[in-house]
């Protein structure tokens, strides 16, 4: 029978893989909400990124999970247990801080050993684990260095090792990559992902960098003004932003406004002056009323550009515009095109073959075309 019971426990763990559950959490400072009614579940072993602009409440939410401060209302559960009464040093959570917060008076190895010393492991265990984790972050042999003797990237690695060495249930990353230059940041993103996969540790990462969120995560939460705007897989977030904020924050997006004229199946037609536009209502939004004001979001990479509209045959929607700006970015040229017929709105278009000289000069008249199925519509209210 004990065997049976064991299997039941195993089954229960399988059926309840949620590690972190944030339940209607709000945080107010002097009446102003930094986080408002945030709720989400995070399954064991997943890598979640909370993405948002500064002031969106993402760091506040992360610090509440770490135990730094107490939520105004709501509860956070870790392993099914409410933790609001548990002080940070009794939560099994590793954290990599934005400015790393490595202990400057200790060596790299002493920094990594610190969590184990605080947990009163014996010296042999500590030495073994410190060596193993320094090797995991590829700092084998550098343990004796002082923090200031290490490069920025190496300091990052010490901070990761210190956060993981005691094998916490949960790893929190508070924008630790924000201060690095681009090349190193992209290397470290992949490095974090490798280590996270290797150890299978559940991770919550906070960033304002949309690329980082898309590259690193299993799931992305987009926050703005203290509220969770969307929680989805990266590709889903990118392809089907749930509202105009998410559509604007992730990717390069143009917005066209119009008035709904007809609804047939999933397709909604709308007009802007004399221009006929169409698109698909985003997410699970209800079909619009006729006459309702809508805004359509179109990704820059889904807009085609040509000198003549005949070169854009097969596309549903074609408008004409004038090049306002041609921005050379190396691997691509970004055209900013002003469309007078849509109220002078600027639409951006990519040209990924800029090896030749830029095709269009500012002031040139061009045609833009796209498919209605690529346009996501949001109600304006």
């Amino acid at each position: 029978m004990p065997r049976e019971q064991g299997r039941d426990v195993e089954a229960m763990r399988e059926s309840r893989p949620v590690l972190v559950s944030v339940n209607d959490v709000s945080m107010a400072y002097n009446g102003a909400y930094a986080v408002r009614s945030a709720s989400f579940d995070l399954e064991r072993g997943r890598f979640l990124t909370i993405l948002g602009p500064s002031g969106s409440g993402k760091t506040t939410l992360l610090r509440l999970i770490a135990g730094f401060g107490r939520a105004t209302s709501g509860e956070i559960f870790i392993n099914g247990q409410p933790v609001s009464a548990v002080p940070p040093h009794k939560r099994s959570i590793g954290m990599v801080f934005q400015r790393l917060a490595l202990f400057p008076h200790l060596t790299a190895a002493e920094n990594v050993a610190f969590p184990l010393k605080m947990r009163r492991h014996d010296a042999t265990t500590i030495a073994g684990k410190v060596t193993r984790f320094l090797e995991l972050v590829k700092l084998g042999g550098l343990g004796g260095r002082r923090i200031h003797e290490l490069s920025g990237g190496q300091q990052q690695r010490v901070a990761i090792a210190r956060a993981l060495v005691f094998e916490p249930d949960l790893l929190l990353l508070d924008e630790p990559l924000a201060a690095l230059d681009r090349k190193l940041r992209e290397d470290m993103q992949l490095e974090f992902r490798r280590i996270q996969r290797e150890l299978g540790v559940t991770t919550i990462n906070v960033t304002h960098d949309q690329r980082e969120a898309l590259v690193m995560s299993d799931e992305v939460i987009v926050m703005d003004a203290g509220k969770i705007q969307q929680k989805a897989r990266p590709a889903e977030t990118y392809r089907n932003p749930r509202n105009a904020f998410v559509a604007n924050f992730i990717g390069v997006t143009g917005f066209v406004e119009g008035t709904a004229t007809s609804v047939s199946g999933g397709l909604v037609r709308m007009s802007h002056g004399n221009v006929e536009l169409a698109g698909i209502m985003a997410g699970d939004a209800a079909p619009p009323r006729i006459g309702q004001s809508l805004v359509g979001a179109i990704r820059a990479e889904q807009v085609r550009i040509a000198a003549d509209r005949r070169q854009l045959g097969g596309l549903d929607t074609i408008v004409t515009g004038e090049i306002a700006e041609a921005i050379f970015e190396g691997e691509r040229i970004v055209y900013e095109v002003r469309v007078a017929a849509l109220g002078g709105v600027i639409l951006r278009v990519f040209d990924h073959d800029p090896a030749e000289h830029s095709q269009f000069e500012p002031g040139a008249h061009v045609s833009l075309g796209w498919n209605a199925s690529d346009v996501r519509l949001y109600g304006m209210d």
Partner: protein
Amino acid sequence: MTAPRSKSIVLWTFVISVLVLLSAPTIVVIGASFTSGNMIAFPPEGLSLKWYAKIAQATELWDAFLRSLYAAAICTIIAIPAGTLAGIALAKYPIRFATSVQMYLLLPFTIPLIGSGIGLMLVFGEARLLGQLWPVGVAVCVINLPFMIWAVSASAASLDPDLELAAANCGAPPLSTFIHVTIPGVMPGIISGSLLMFILALNEFLVSLLLVDARIVTLPVQIYNSIRSIITPDLAAVSVVFVACAVAAVFLLDRLVGLEIFLKSK
């Protein structure tokens, strides 16, 4: 071309005269201490080390110097825990009566020493503690403690607040965090504050004068007493030893705190 040159001449004249003014007393006393004559004079009449030889023999001076060291040590030993805790508290926590505390910290600059000295004399006299040496250390500590608090709170204010959160996150309970992270973090302030306290106590004259009797005079009081009878060059030599002590302390401060800053990640 002439304008910058005349400007630099004016600047250099100013800088040099300020330097001369600041260092004149020290230079005069050092020069006078090497005289071979029997009167204190600058420039010295001939060069000799005989006055140093004389003070090396003078047991009453040495005893007074040891008493000064003793009082300074008492002062520093009290100042380190008191000033460290107060300095950290002031820098890191919202404190009730914060303005009153800040006013208290201005006291050493605003209240004349003679005033606080007489106050302390009354207090210790009432407690029948006059005529002993350790109350001098306590008194000097009370008067100069704000310097220690300032040194530590400056250090604590520049400490990354995330360090303590990081320690908690690593599993350190509050007391361990304090011992293993906060104290090492404010160590530069503690070192510079306690050296400052030590030097101030070693040099303290007025408060000592009021609290000691003839049997237990400290070095500055001993020197003062000698001046009142006859001014001989051995006093200049004693002063030079004093200056050397201060220079050594400053050197030590630079080495220790400089080293400490060097250990930081900057």
